[in-house]
């Protein structure tokens, strides 16, 4: 059959609602996740984690465990294959926790000390739980608090600029008519996707083959190649369906353990994490202690801006929760200072949890803005409008597009903001006090180099190959729509294959960069293919393939401040006699470039907003000072919003063209979270007259605050 593109060009797939192309497979159970894919001769590994927070392993009594039914091997620091951890990967130096079983040091509770492999998962688990590991314990410190004596400013961290500074802060604060100087805290939070982390590794004709659940198979494959000193071409990683990632699904010890075990045993080995192990092994959000100082003229114009954020990291690796980056984008002032400080504690290394930096940072900053509005006697939206910068407050660069005020305008109209009485503590409905609040949102719009291949098949269909990851976002569907428009054909004729490192390098699903990065590569390849097909002629049986690589185009992109923006609105009800807080309404309006698929985009936004709601009211991991571990590290103990907590949520967007961007996509994975906790905290103040500067706003905190207010 000879086919060119459609007779009449079809476009307009991007921007119209499409259900997920793999939706039916997922709801019928036909879609298989990493831990469900069968392998002949599969063996099962179970990780054993340290129970002490600091010390050395004295002994691993593997002999009795090796005699247990079905046990094949016990890997630990005395017998495990060696790995190379002295390298620089896609995101810098590897987290040393990937170098499992290489030495006897234990730097935190949850450090992997052994892997028990058995014929069945149950046998492996029973044996792993029976394994006795003895330690020489050393005193530990897991106490995070503002002004910890060990706090330092990170130097030369490739992932973050620790400090920015301009103007004379103290002088401007002194000259300010109104000053806000407050401290805010957010707790340790954990990302727990529904699907636990799972990897199966095997050697297949001299190649390492890993079936995984991850956010980027290029990334995982390249790290595994480096760790095991393999030729990158001899590592294949696939990750067809992923039940959520949120920043937690990169490379973790379980993939390394699976590769070690398959190397030793010469048969496929699967390692799946338990929910409790996920609380220790896949990263988390550091607690933060933030101080914000704002100085303004009586009309709200900012003279002084200071945001200092302290977070924690482990003793083995440096990770900075970049809470203070918001002000570098959002607000200018004559004197402007942002600073990150770190404390090294005997805990696992934190990592990127959805909206890293911006989520806790926006709670502090957007709460402080609300406090400033109160002090100035101004509407919080008017205050933000007054301080809208022309160019990047720190960089001086132009914005690619900045439509935050349009978001506030549209949001205020839909929310009914104009009728709001700004005074707190006035509205009552039965036992509930009612209030409303707002906050701004922003998140960087980044992009990473990617390759793609688009093939015109002889049967008239098209196959797109890109090593993207669909972590539940609808990425596969989005790429289908992008390719359809570029090829000018109906989406039904397109099959998108993703998540296979053999497709060539591509950006991972993270930092809200996936869709923008992949769409760019797919568009270029599809454009080229369409042009080739336009020349006419038969399509050979193997099809015609066009390939792309966006590396150079991305390098050539003009330097600008590129960000998504948004405005969050919330209405809450608070019973100060019981401490209960219920969110009644959330509205988020976003300016986030081209929205590829309104259906899944809306899900992303409301999912992010629900995440922000959980952050405001529920989420908090409790670290036990005595043991250094967590208490209640499961989904009964670690709370996030249940359905009954989630109110009417509306998410929508305003036009946000990005003229100099070839795809116009900005990314939407994270901005939905940003600002929500502040909008809720601001609404709680509006309802009760009490500021909550420590998250989550738990009933006991509301009760204590009400007691305090009554006594005062």
């Amino acid at each position, binding site marked *: 059959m000879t086919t060119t593109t459609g007779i009449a060009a079809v476009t307009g797939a991007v921007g119209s609602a499409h259900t997920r192309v793999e939706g039916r497979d997922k709801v019928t159970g036909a879609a298989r996740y990493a831990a469900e894919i069968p392998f002949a001769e599969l063996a099962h590994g179970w990780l054993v984690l340290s129970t002490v927070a600091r010390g050395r392993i004295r002994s691993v009594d593997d002999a009795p465990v090796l005699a247990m039914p079905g046990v094949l091997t016990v890997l630990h620091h005395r017998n495990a294959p060696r790995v190379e951890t002295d390298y620089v990967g896609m995101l810098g130096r590897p987290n040393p926790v990937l170098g499992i079983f290489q030495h006897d040091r234990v730097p935190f509770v949850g450090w992997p000390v052994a892997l028990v492999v058995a014929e069945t998962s149950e046998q492996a688990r029973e044996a792993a739980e029976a394994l006795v590991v003895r330690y020489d314990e050393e005193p530990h410190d897991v106490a995070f608090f503002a002004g910890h004596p060990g706090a330092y400013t990170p130097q030369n961290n490739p992932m973050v600029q620790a400090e920015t500074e301009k103007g004379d802060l103290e002088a401007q604060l002194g000259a300010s008519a109104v000053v806000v100087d407050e401290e805010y805290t957010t707790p340790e939070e954990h990302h727990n996707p529904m699907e636990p982390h799972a990897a199966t590794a095997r050697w297949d004709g001299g190649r390492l083959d890993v079936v995984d659940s991850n956010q980027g198979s290029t990334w995982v494959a390249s790290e595994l190649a480096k760790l095991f000193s393999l030729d990158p071409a001899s590592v294949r990683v696939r990750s067809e369906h992923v039940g959520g990632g949120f920043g937690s699904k990169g490379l973790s010890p379980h993939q390394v353990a699976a590769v070690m075990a398959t190397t030793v045993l010469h048969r496929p080995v699967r390692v799946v994490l338990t929910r409790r192990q996920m609380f220790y092994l896949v990263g988390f959000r550091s607690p933060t202690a933030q101080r914000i100082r704002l100085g303004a003229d009586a009309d709200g114009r900012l003279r002084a801006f200071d945001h200092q954020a302290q977070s924690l990291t482990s003793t083995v690796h440096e990770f900075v929760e970049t809470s203070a980056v918001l002000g570098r984008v959002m607000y200018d002032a004559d004197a402007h200072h942002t600073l990150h400080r770190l404390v090294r504690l005997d805990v696992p290394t934190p990592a990127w949890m959805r909206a890293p930096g911006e989520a806790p940072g926006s709670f502090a900053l957007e709460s402080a803005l609300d406090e400033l509005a109160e002090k100035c006697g101004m509407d919080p939206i008017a205050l933000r409008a007054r301080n809208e910068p022309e160019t990047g407050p720190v960089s001086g660069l132009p914005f690619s597009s900045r439509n935050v005020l349009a978001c506030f305008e549209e949001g205020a109209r839909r929310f009914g903001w104009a009728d709001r009485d700004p005074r707190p503590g006035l509205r009552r409905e039965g036992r509930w006090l009612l209030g409303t609040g707002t906050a701004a949102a922003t998140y960087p719009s980044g992009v990473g180099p990617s390759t793609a291949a688009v093939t015109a098949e002889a049967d008239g269909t098209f196959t797109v190959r890109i090593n993207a990851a669909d972590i539940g976002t609808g990425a596969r569907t989005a790429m289908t729509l992008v390719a359809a428009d570029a090829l000018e054909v109906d989406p039904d004729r397109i099959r998108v294959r993703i998540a296979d490192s053999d497709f060539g390098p591509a950006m991972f699903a993270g930092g809200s960069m996936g869709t923008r990065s992949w769409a760019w590569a797919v568009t270029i390849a599809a454009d080229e293919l369409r042009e080739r097909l336009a020349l006419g002629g038969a399509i050979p049986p193997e099809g015609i393939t066009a390939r792309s690589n966006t590396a150079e185009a991305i390098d050539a992109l003009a330097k600008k401040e590129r960000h998504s923006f948004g405005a969050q609105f919330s209405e809450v009800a608070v019973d100060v006699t*019981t401490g209960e807080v219920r969110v009644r309404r959330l509205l988020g309006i976003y300016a986030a470039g081209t929205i590829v698929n309104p259906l899944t985009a809306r899900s992303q936004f409301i999912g992010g907003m629900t995440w922000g709601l959980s952050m405001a009211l529920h989420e908090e991991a409790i670290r036990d000072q005595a043991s250094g571990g967590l208490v209640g590290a499961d989904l009964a103990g670690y709370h996030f919003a*249940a359905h009954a907590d989630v109110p009417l949520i509306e998410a929508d967007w305003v036009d946000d063209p990005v003229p100099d961007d070839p795809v116009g996509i900005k990314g939407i994975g994270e901005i939905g979270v940003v600002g929500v906790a502040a909008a809720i905290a601001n609404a709680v103040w509006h309802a009760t007259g009490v500021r909550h500067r420590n998250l989550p706003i738990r009933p006991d905190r509301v009760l204590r605050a009400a007691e305090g207010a009554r006594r005062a």
Partner: protein
Amino acid sequence: MREFGYERVFDVSGAVALLGADPDARFLGGGTNLVDLMKAGVERPARLIDVRELPLDGVEFTRDGGLRIGATVTNSDLAAHPEVRRHYPALAQAVLAGASGQLRNMATVGGNLLQRTRCGYFTDLSKPCNKRAPGSGCPALTGEHHNHAILGASEHCVATHPSDMAVALAAFDAVISYETADGPGELPIADFYLPVGDTPHIETALPPGALITGVTLPPAPVAAHSRYRKVRERASYAFAIGSIAAALDVQDDVIREVRLAFGAVASRPWRARAAERVLTGGPASAEAFAAAADAELAGAEPLAENGYKVTLIRNLVVAVLTELTEEADR
């Protein structure tokens, strides 16, 4: 997780005999607590004896007009039962306030009474805990205890009993029936849960090997005007941080009878007898309610992080009794 055997039983004496023959066996109700504890390694039974096919799944009137609830009645069926809703509404509300729809469909009355504490140390084998490993210590005393007991605890354990259902049962003087190899027996709920003392691992007065067969609610006209209110850290699917079951009979502005029980404040559902004494025969006013709450809470011994529960319970007593009074007036 240890390998275990599974058996289903169809008659009460068979169930009791089977359990008696194997000290490592446990009864299995809905499994919603036991199986979780097995996964955590806290329970390691060699054999599970599934009691759900026993003929104990009925709710019926007793001769004196009370209600007898079978031990294997599911939480969902109990909450939906029309006579329960009519005569003991706080019980239906309490059950509905617990867990989730799926869990309530599985959970049984017997299992609900015997569910274990949600103290985070108890379910974590890597940590000490007197309840799980007697003599190992109680890390909650100086550690995480913001949802622990304020009443009746001891230096050996400050855990709370998590059941909502049991709080309503305590307010209504439920009697728990059981069967042992030596024959049947009964325990009023006030004697069913033991004081903590220095044996936090021994939670009930049930004889070893006993099968709970049912719960009897004596007739109590006051119970028809009752309410359960639960405060938790999210709107659903969370255990209480404070709850109350209350029943009130007010006539001519005088309290004829009142029942009060608190949840999430002690190792057992806490019947507030001191408060009841203060209220009975007195006025139904907010001041009286507050004074009664204070009388009950005078014995509270909060820890560093759970003192808010005193305020919370006090506020709940006033709010719920005020509501019940206002409804009685209508």
